[in-house]
């Protein structure tokens, strides 16, 4: 047993919200996921009403909020669910054996509920809480008592979601960001499912002090995930072929500290290779010569902070990207400096030592074409992991790697993930399931001996 008192490390990702931080709002237990940036002016729309997010500032992540009728208008109020709710379920468990009801006499003709929409609106105006409305609906339902226990629970939950919606304040972390995107806009992350992403990080041995090379064409999700595992040490180089960096705006949702942000760097493939034989002075000469390319690179990387917001709002998806109100309030909150162009010292160091991890997530590209270029930048005995939506490009890539004797321990794997519903007497796999999370080719770079003993 340890002698000294346990220490927890420096706070990488605080557990309490603050002004300007990025949050993930879980509405009605996973029904809807929204990313937002908390500020005095930010809002959230549920149904046809808009609520201010101000009450969420300064609260611990994991807090639950419920819509309450206020003096002027409804607002989000923090509440702690009473443990009675859970006792109801437990009681339900013990009464299961006595359940004699079934639905043979219940006719679904939309006439069971006697409260009308106008009645409900009147209740609201009189200041009834959401929970009171739900109870009123139950009391006025002709068929409620005839329902089975499970059916009653389901009914109550459904009404509660509509009349007393709840918002759960969640910390944006690799896992939640990936799940939210996979659920809502999977194409933007190339259908990279959370278990596949976790495998990429393990198989490429991403850890503190790593120098990770990442070809990220999934919006920045992989770059962010790697940076999260580095925790402010090492470096992650998000590289690209050609002159234009791939967009990685998802990294801005992670609430990264400055220390982590400054280790997320960009560098084109050409720049990574061209520094090879040049000294410091010659490098700057070389960069002046390639004016067009480096200028366009710098322009794009510097404008990440502000332009990306406009780009994403043009797509009409204000839900998943920090709301465009950010552009006015960005001056007050910290602008993350992630994604800066890699300085010459970093490039030099990478050239000398090699990268210790390589992850390629380019689900629409030819895998072999990318591996051929980037694998030589990886140090010997370093692992790599390549994600693809389709099997065939990885099969070709693996075959070529074998022929060229560039890697060993090659393996193509496909993750399979199934979720379960676990409830008393109602345990079974969930009805819905993801059909694919993509494929991964992993391996370790070999050192080819030129001379043999």
């Amino acid at each position: 047993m340890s002698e000294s008192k346990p220490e927890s490390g420096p706070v990488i990702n605080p557990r309490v919200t603050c002004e300007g931080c990025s949050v993930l709002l879980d509405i009605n237990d996973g029904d809807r996921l929204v990313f937002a940036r908390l500020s005095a002016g930010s809002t959230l729309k549920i149904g046809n009403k808009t609520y201010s997010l101000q009450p969420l500032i300064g609260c611990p992540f994991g807090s639950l909020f419920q819509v309450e009728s206020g003096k002027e208008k409804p607002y989000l109020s923090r509440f702690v669910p009473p443990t009675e709710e859970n006792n109801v379920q437990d009681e339900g468990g013990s009464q299961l054996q006595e359940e004699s009801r079934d639905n043979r006499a219940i006719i679904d003709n939309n006439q069971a509920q006697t409260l009308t929409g106008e009645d409900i609106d009147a209740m609201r105006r009189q200041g009834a809480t959401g929970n009171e409305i739900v109870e009123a609906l139950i009391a006025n339902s002709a068929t409620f008592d005839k329902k089975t226990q499970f059916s009653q629970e389901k009914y109550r939950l459904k009404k509660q979601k509509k009349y007393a919606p709840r918002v759960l304040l969640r910390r944006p972390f690799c896992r939640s960001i990936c799940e939210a995107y996979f659920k809502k806009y999977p194409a933007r992350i190339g259908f990279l499912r959370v278990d596949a992403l976790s495998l990429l990080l393990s198989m490429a041995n991403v850890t503190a002090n790593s120098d990770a090379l990442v070809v990220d064409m999934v919006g920045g999700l992989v770059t962010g995930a790697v940076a999260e595992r580095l925790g402010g040490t090492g470096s992650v180089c998000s590289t690209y072929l050609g002159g234009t960096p791939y967009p990685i705006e998802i990294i801005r949702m992670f609430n990264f500290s400055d220390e982590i942000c400054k280790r997320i760097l960009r560098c084109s493939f050409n720049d990574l290779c061209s520094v090879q034989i040049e000294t410091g002075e010659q490098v700057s000469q070389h960069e002046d010569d390639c004016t067009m390319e480096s200028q366009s690179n710098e322009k794009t990387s510097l404008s990440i902070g502000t332009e990306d917001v406009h780009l994403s709002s043009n797509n009409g998806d204000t839900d998943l990207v920090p709301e465009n109100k950010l552009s006015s309030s960005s001056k007050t909150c910290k602008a993350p400096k992630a994604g800066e162009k890699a300085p010459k010292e970093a490039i030099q160091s990478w050239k000398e030592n090699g990268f210790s991890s390589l992850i390629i997530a380019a689900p629409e590209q030819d895998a072999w074409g990318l591996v051929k270029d980037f694998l030589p930048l990886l140090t010997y005995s370093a692992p790599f992991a390549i994600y693809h939506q389709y099997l065939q490009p990885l099969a070709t890539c693996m075959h070529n790697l074998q022929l060229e004797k560039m890697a060993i321990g090659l393996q193509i794997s496909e993750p399979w993930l199934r979720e379960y519903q676990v409830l008393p007497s109602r345990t079974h796999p969930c009805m819905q399931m993801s059909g694919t999370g993509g494929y991964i080719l992993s391996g370790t770079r070999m050192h080819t001996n030129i001379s043999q003993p």
Partner: protein
Amino acid sequence: MLLMDSSKKISFNRCIRDGDLVIIYERHDTMKAVKVCENSVLQNRFGIFKHSDWIGKPFGSKVFSNKGGFVYILAPTPELWTLVLSHRTQILYIADISFVVMYLEVVPGCLVLESGTGSGSLTTSLARAVAPTGHVYTFDFHEQRAASAREDFERTGISNLVTVGVRDIQSEGFPDEFSGLADSVFLDLPQPWLAIPSARNMLKQDGTLCSFSPCIEQVQRSCETLRSDFTDIRTFEILLRMYELREWKIDHSKFEDGSSIAYPPCKRRQPSSEVSVGENTSSPAVVARPSAETRGHTGYLTFARRKCDS
């Protein structure tokens, strides 16, 4: 594990040294861990390998025996370690390990509690995830296994990140000194519901918990116990399906009447007299199919978050 110590990490300039722990790769399914020792040899089916031949070579090199056979020398990683470590108990493999580390939201600096330690397979990956400033406190009720685990962590160089304790978590719970300090708790116990109340006290608000159980009855009981103090309770199973490759030379021989046949690789046919020889073209293709043998089940992973009560 070399990476976590920045003075020793692998690079183009870093060569194998006396005292390094290396992974000897014979075949994709045959590997072992060896400590490099100037005067030692490795003996296997390929011959005798002198350790001194390895010193000074880069990791990832192919090295030869006295008989001309060869193996590869790799730098250790938690993934390779999981495949070579000695099994004192049933272990977790990469699919479950990766998912657990991600879903528990373990990042550098975290404090993680684990029970039971078992053979230390998951523990090694947890250590990797919390490095360099976090810590893993792992407990096993079996004194000898705890000692073996401690030895392993010394060998792999992660003992500054892991502390092994001998304790029966099911009956005693976790030590009070960790109350309210744990970011994550991992349970791999026969009756995890007995440990859940203690886990609740150890965890920070919104902290994560994971329980690994092979049987669904265990899962049901654990979930029941979790409901009072935990939220976001989710249960998964995860498996990895492997693929194997084959080169498939499709022989586009044309018959006289214009129809053609594709010959799959394993059939050796003599070209029949009807085939017109002049139009033979073969285009090699690489085809993939799932491996015939695969694992059907390891265990259910149940995750939950400690409720906020203030």
